[in-house]
């Protein structure tokens, strides 16, 4: 009973740890890494809802990330909109575009869906690159203001860290409720077999569109937070390699696992930073670690963490039992 309570509320504990973390970090550089990690966590939770739960591939997810980042940036700088209005417009535009894309592309399945979303991602990348007069073109768009809400500017890394991780917490809780609801079960049914799901009365098309738009909305949240943190956006950040990185985070973390999304995003953000210490070989080691993870943990880091937890628990119990037996001799 006690362990059930613990298990159900583990995420609250984890986020309490997040809140306390800045107090023990040796220097502020880790804050920046964790802010970037938080953004990727949001992206990866969103993509996991789509890929892990509903089983729909997206190879163009970075496009939604970029669309909202550019929208809020351009509105704030070129059109002098207040920051909050730009953010809302960015979120709205990304969601709207994702809806318009979802309706035709989600009729595709498997590889064709992957191709469709990939094409969309490439189109957005080209538009960001070529519409020089609006987006600043390939060399990027500068001068985006810092995030400010109601006159309060979040200019320090510490303040921004809390903003980003509050967003992570909120979206995590939302997703957690979603996947445990009727809708979450419907999504998993679609993943297993779309035909069977619709035979059981699940409106597959509607659910697929909903989860696609939701996952684009998550990406849009990360996008506006990115734009007002770095204060600069360039097309390279939102290109195909980023979409692939996001898919890697979801798969490496563990499909259909929210904790997996968090672990995958944080692991792939932190790993390259740790590996900076071994210059020249970092990319080699990075690749090797990914390969080993996928070989030995096909279920992702979430599965690995679960196994390690169970193993240490049983070890602990055995030791306790052995000590009791040993005491008698």
């Amino acid at each position: 009973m006690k362990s059930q309570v613990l298990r159900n509320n583990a995420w609250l504990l984890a986020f309490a740890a997040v809140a306390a973390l800045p107090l023990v970090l040796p220097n502020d550089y880790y804050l920046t890494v964790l802010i970037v990690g938080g953004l990727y966590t949001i992206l990866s939770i969103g993509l996991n809802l789509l890929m892990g739960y509903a089983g729909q591939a997206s190879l163009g997810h970075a496009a939604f990330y970029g669309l909202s980042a550019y929208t809020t940036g351009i509105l704030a700088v070129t059109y002098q909109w207040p920051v909050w209005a730009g953010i809302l417009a960015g979120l709205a535009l990304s969601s709207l575009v994702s809806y318009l894309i979802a309706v035709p592309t989600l009729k595709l399945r498997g590889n064709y869906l992957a191709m469709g979303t990939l094409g969309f991602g490439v189109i957005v990348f080209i538009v960001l690159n070529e519409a020089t007069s609006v987006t600043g073109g390939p060399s990027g768009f500068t001068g985006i203001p810092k995030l400010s809400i109601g006159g309060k500017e979040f200019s320090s890394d510490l303040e921004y860290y809390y903003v980003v991780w509050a967003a992570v917490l909120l979206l995590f809780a939302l997703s957690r409720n979603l996947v445990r609801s009727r809708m979450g079960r419907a999504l998993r049914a679609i993943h297993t077999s779309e035909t069977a799901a619709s035979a059981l009365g699940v409106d597959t098309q509607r659910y697929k569109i909903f989860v696609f738009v939701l996952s684009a909305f998550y990406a849009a949240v990360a996008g506006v937070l990115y734009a007002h943190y770095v204060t600069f956006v360039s097309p390279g950040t939102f290109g195909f390699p980023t979409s692939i990185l996001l898919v890697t985070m979801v798969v490496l973390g563990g499909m259909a696992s929210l904790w997996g999304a968090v672990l995958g995003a944080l692991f792939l953000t932190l790993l390259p930073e740790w590996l900076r210490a071994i210059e020249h070989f970092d990319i080699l080691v990075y690749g090797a670690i990914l390969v080993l993870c996928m070989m030995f943990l096909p279920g992702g880091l979430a599965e690995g963490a679960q196994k390690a937890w169970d193993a240490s628990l049983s070890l602990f119990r055995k030791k306790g039992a052995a000590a009791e037996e040993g005491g008698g001799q």
Partner: protein
Amino acid sequence: MNRKAVWFGFVFVFAMLLGAIAQAVEPVKIGAVFSVTGPASFLGEPKRNTVKMLEADINRSGGILGRPVEFIVYDDESDATKTVTAVDRLIKKDRVAAIIGPSISGNTLAVIPKAGAEKIPLISCAAAKKITSPVHPYIFKVAPSDLLAAKRIFQDMKNRKLAKVAIITASDGYGAGGREDMKELAPQMGISIVADEVYGPKDTDMTAQLTKIKGTDAQAIVCWGTNPGPAVIARNRVQLGIKTPLYMSSGVASKKFIELAGAENAEGILLPAARLIVEPQIPADHPQKKVIVNYIKDYEGKYKQPVSTFGGHAHDAVGILVQAIKDANSTDPKAIRDALEKVKGFQGTWGEFNFTPEEHTGLTEEAFVMVKIVNGDWQMLK
């Protein structure tokens, strides 16, 4: 049990030794961020190599201010987000006194707010004009703006009495920058742009654009991009039998371009380039002769590969920074910044650098010489 004690002893002694070494002299820490991998690696790799080579040289000759120097080089993988975390790491974790790089304009623009807010001097090795205009107190750059290269080309055209130009530019950061600069500069220099064509950086055939240009009364064509696009244009131009003189940007000033285009297609192409590539043709009494000869000798001796003008940017940035630290007689970022603004008459591989509080790019268009490709080699024009 015994073995454990022996191991423990070893580790203990080793740790003590390390501690003693670390305490001896605190090195001067300088950060560097280059695109060593990714699409811009042709810029970043020679820069990384140059910095590592100069680190050894400086330490062999006694370091700076009696302290050894340590260059901490990070790879940004040509990615803006990675550049931001790398610069943050240099400033907050490694606590460097100054930063050299990044090697591309977009990544530099991404970190200007960061370096500026933390008040750490940053010497960019990228070319975009936006980096130093408007002037930011802590941001400098050593690569001449593309505007200066464009100016050099237009000057050469005027000398040849050519007034109508067709421009064909790549749709990437470099090409778009050149296009903007040329459109801004042309009216001021009495040159009219009669055709304005754009190609994708990965396109493999530009005959469509060149055919359009052929139909205009252009007296010269200027192409702005980095390999391989310009090489394709050089080939297509010969295939289409276009005799109009062709100018290239300084972005292709390496032997790789002639190789890709083929010597017969590259024949007669004109371009502005750094003196580095025409080293044997520089007169012996030229002020940059010595520094260029030494750089080529050292680099090619150490790495067994040809030197590039991009590595030259890193060479100049290190030289200028070391001089500023010596002038300031301090490794305090503020003092280094103040000293950087006072660097005058510094002879680098790219030319003579003069900084002032209003001018954070040290070079003028004198950094470029006009070069003609003759028989698959460079020929410096007077």
